């Protein structure tokens, strides 16, 4: 599997898009630090970008890589290599190179600015960890969609829809149900709804760690009580791992039965 990972990783590192992605974060990091002149404020702005952009880029990269490496996959299938290694290797190659772009692209400006001397280091690490998780999650979701759809256009469409749903529509539905059912107690509902969407989960996790009262009112208090504790952090990380592992398992399972 590591050989496949290596080849996929090099293949991507050589590609123009990895650089574009890396340079984008590098630029974003520097610009935000100069504009805000404050590490903590820059982190909040960054969060808003990462939460939306990382899933989008991961989804698109994942789906394009899977379809474009069809020949590579077919070549490997005739070699003495396990099927699961082929797909896991390619997946980790894509997710790994995307994560590297993210971590290096943002890490360099922040470290240069003096991150290690500021007390925002934990918040910043949390941001990078959730960013890495979102990359892992949305890349493997995209791989799953591509594996189940021979038709590229359809697969691409589903992938973009998935992102749209998770990043935009889910929140809309969530807010709407909060308004419609406002006479009922909705604590556990809103808590559950947040936990079941990795994007919302990441956002809430960071916001509450940053100690901003962006979530006002009663619900905010409930969230604070849950996510603010170690147990809340633990459950959140567990859910992110769950969101990563379950699609990986499906990828391996479905790929075993597929004809090439």
């Amino acid at each position, binding site marked *: 599997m590591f*050989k496949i990972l290596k*080849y996929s990783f090099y*293949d991507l590192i050589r590609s123009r898009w990895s650089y574009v992605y890396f340079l984008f974060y590098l630029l974003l990091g520097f610009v935000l630090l100069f504009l805000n002149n404050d590490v903590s404020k820059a982190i909040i702005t960054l969060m808003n970008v990462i939460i939306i952009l990382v899933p989008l880029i991961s989804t698109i990269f994942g789906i394009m890589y899977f379809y474009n*490496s*069809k*020949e*590579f996959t*077919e*070549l*490997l*299938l*005739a*070699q*003495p*290599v*396990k*099927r699961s290694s082929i797909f896991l290797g390619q997946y980790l190659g894509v997710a790994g190179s995307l994560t590297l772009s993210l971590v290096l692209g943002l890490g360099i400006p922040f470290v240069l600015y003096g991150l290690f001397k500021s007390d925002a280091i934990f918040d910043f690490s949390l941001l990078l960890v959730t960013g890495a998780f979102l990359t892992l999650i949305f890349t493997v979701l995209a791989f799953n969609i591509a594996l189940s759809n021979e038709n590229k256009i359809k697969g691409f469409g589903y992938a973009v829809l998935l992102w749209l749903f998770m990043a935009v529509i889910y929140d809309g539905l969530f807010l709407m149900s909060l308004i419609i059912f406002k006479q009922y107690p909705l604590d556990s509902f809103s808590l559950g709804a947040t936990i079941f969407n990795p994007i919302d989960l990441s956002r809430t996790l960071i916001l509450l760690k940053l100690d901003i009262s962006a979530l006002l009112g009663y619900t905010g208090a409930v969230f604070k009580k849950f996510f603010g504790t170690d147990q809340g952090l633990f459950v959140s990380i567990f859910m992110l791992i769950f969101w990563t592992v379950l699609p990986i398992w499906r990828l391996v399972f479905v790929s*075993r*039965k*597929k*004809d*090439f």
Partner: protein
Amino acid sequence: MIHIENLQKKFGKNIVLSDLDLIIEKPGVFAILGPNGSGKTTLIKSVLGMVVPDKGNISVMGKPIKKNFKYRKKIDYLPQIANFPGNLKVYELIRMIKDLRQSPSDEERLIQLFKLEPFLDKKLSTLSGGTKQKVNIVMAFMFNSPLLILDEPTTGLDPASLIHLKNLIREQKEMNKTVLITSHIMQFVAEVSDIIVYLLEGNIYFKGSIEELKTKTGQTDLEHAIAAIAIEPAHV
């Protein structure tokens, strides 16, 4: 070598192989023939584990291939369509496959034979169809595996390369290997193969030597014999 028992494969409602049994025990060149869409490639890919059968058992070298992948180290495969990652250069592709297989290889000789030196640092997406097929052949013959599977190896080759290909196949035969070939070019089949396996309607319709086939159909050349076998199913 290869034992296939009760093999069945459907694509949706299309039953491609049904209850197919085939035993290939001896070394030699086996030609798998049959009309377009008769399931030759599907049969080959089932042996390679690329197509997952609905039913049946396949063993290669005495071991079932289910949940096994190491047996592919004993098989060299030439796919019907030479689809290679287009962004790789020829030498990068060869190096990668060598790295993955970790077996001794003699690609130098084959590269010289097919005059591929000028193309080694060209990207695969820029090669002509015939040149790609030569790369395909180099990749299939460069390892010394006991079993070779060639799916339409003659596609797009010029006459000189075709002669090299035939010599390579004879060489394998002399080394006591088992070679499976599919082809629609009967002259080529007649020249290189020992045994004909004829696939029709999802099953082995005929298996035997070229001579047996000619006697059975009362024809004097292979092309007519094959044509006759397909037209008159009652003669089995």
